[in-house]
């Protein structure tokens, strides 16, 4: 990790923090879902509350990754400052690394309300080991959504990126079964969930903090989505450079 990557991460974070509402945006929806759905319905049952909190953590990671990278990158690309940065003595590497570092930091911050609500207002509980594994799973689970976000951000203009992020996050959350306890989702969701990346991510999270064995199909689909999103992201990035440079 070079110093320049850290410099870029630092200024990315500064720019985000200067408009704090952006932070609230990615933290609000999962926290509100915790308060409205998890606390009243599953709050008293330690197992259900723990799984539900883990689901909301996964939800939060997905939303903040999609929006931070999808909308953030598209927005940056639309600014003349982006063109100027290309004349500075930094290649794509430090800018890319800085953006991902800043995005991870933002993800962790937006998780704080969900975890706090889970700990204070529900019976959700986990071991120290489970908590640490959970944090590690945050980074693994964020992978496909980070890459999807980058694909959207480099592939689409700002207005389109915003709409696409808004349209896909909801079906990904519900379809992946984030809004229901393990194996209690409505029938059609049980059918489609294993093929969505959210399912693999949440199963990993459940396994980290509780006593859950992930399904092979979900994990395989998770891997496929990650590779596919990565391929599209690289393609979109190259195409963007090509449009500007060639």
């Amino acid at each position, binding site marked *: 990790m070079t*110093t*320049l990557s850290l*410099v870029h991460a630092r*200024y990315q974070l*500064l*720019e985000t923090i*200067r*408009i704090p509402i952006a932070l609230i945006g990615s933290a609000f929806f999962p926290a509100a879902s915790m308060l409205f759905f998890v606390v009243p319905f599953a709050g008293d049952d330690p197992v259900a509350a723990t799984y539900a909190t883990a689901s909301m953590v996964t939800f939060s990671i997905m939303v903040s990754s999609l929006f931070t990278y999808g909308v953030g990158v598209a927005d940056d690309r639309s*600014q*003349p*400052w982006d*063109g*100027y940065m*290309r*004349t*500075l*003595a*930094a*290649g794509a590497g430090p800018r890319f690394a800085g953006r991902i570092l800043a995005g991870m930091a933002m993800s962790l911050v937006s998780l704080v309300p969900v975890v706090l609500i889970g700990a204070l207002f529900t019976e959700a509980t986990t071991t120290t080991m489970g908590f640490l594994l959970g944090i590690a799973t945050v980074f693994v689970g964020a992978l496909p959504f980070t890459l999807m976000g980058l694909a959207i951000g480099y592939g689409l203009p700002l207005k389109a990126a915003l709409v696409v992020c808004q349209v896909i996050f909801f079906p990904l959350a519900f379809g992946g079964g984030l809004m229901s306890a393990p194996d209690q989702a409505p029938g059609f969701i049980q059918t489609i969930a294993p093929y969505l990346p959210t399912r693999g991510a949440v199963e990993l999270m459940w396994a980290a903090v509780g006593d859950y064995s992930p399904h092979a199909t979900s994990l395989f689909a998770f891997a496929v989505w990650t590779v596919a999103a990565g391929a599209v992201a690289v393609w979109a990035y190259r195409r963007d450079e090509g449009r*500007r*440079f*060639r």
Partner: protein
Amino acid sequence: MILAEAIEVSRRYGDVTALDRVSLQVTQGELVGLLGPNGAGKTTLANLLTGVRRPDEGRVTLCGGDPRDPRTRRTLGVTPQETGLPATLRVGEVVEFVGAHYPDPVPRAELLDQFGLSDLVKRQTGGLSGGQKRRLAIALAFVGRPQVVVLDEPTTGLDVQSRRGLWDAIKAYHADGGTVLLSSHYLEEIEALADRVVVLGRGRVLADDTVAAVRGMVGVRRVSFAHDGEPPTLPGVVAIEQREGRTHLLTPDSDALVRALVVSTVDFRDLEVAPTSLEEAFLAITDSSSDAVALAA
């Protein structure tokens, strides 16, 4: 030593040819003006030399390296467009951020002082006036103690006082041995700063000469009058236009043309002699490139 060079460089955007086999050399310590009307290819040439774009054909070098390589660009200073500053960052932070890309940046306080920005160090750039943004933008070009600076229309839209202040900063850098490539569509700006001028028009180099020589070349005047019949054939005319019953002749030597007109048999009325805009002069030169070559020679 050659610090910036373009060799037979062409660049197209779709069907539009922005640069057509342009060659240019800037050696160490020179202050070269790049002059031309809008759409002449100035910004495209600046973008190629600063590594933002790559040429379709030909080659560009910067301090002997490829400007597309980030390491080469440590020797380069560039000005962002005024509207391009990140609005939420403070003036001091923007300077620190850009400085972090160079091995030996000018200390923040010293740079801000030089450009009269010291009082604004805590202000977010979004709250600066147009002139202040422009000053900051130009200061950023110098933060890395560059060997060569590329300034693309640095003072467009500035009031006269701010413009002179920035000229002083550019002159000071040049006096210390700095190399500058400065594009502008103001002849006045080029005259105030540059030793040498490269005139671009429609993607080609029309002239590459001293300021005085180019001044004579673009010092074209418009001689216009009303008369009946075909336009007369007169010496030293680079372009002829006829509209609204008047004939307009563009010439570098209006005195000689008027003398010739008076002794000719042309039955003219309402004679007017007026300076042309730089843009008009360029267009006239571009339209009759053989005349331009004759003038430049």
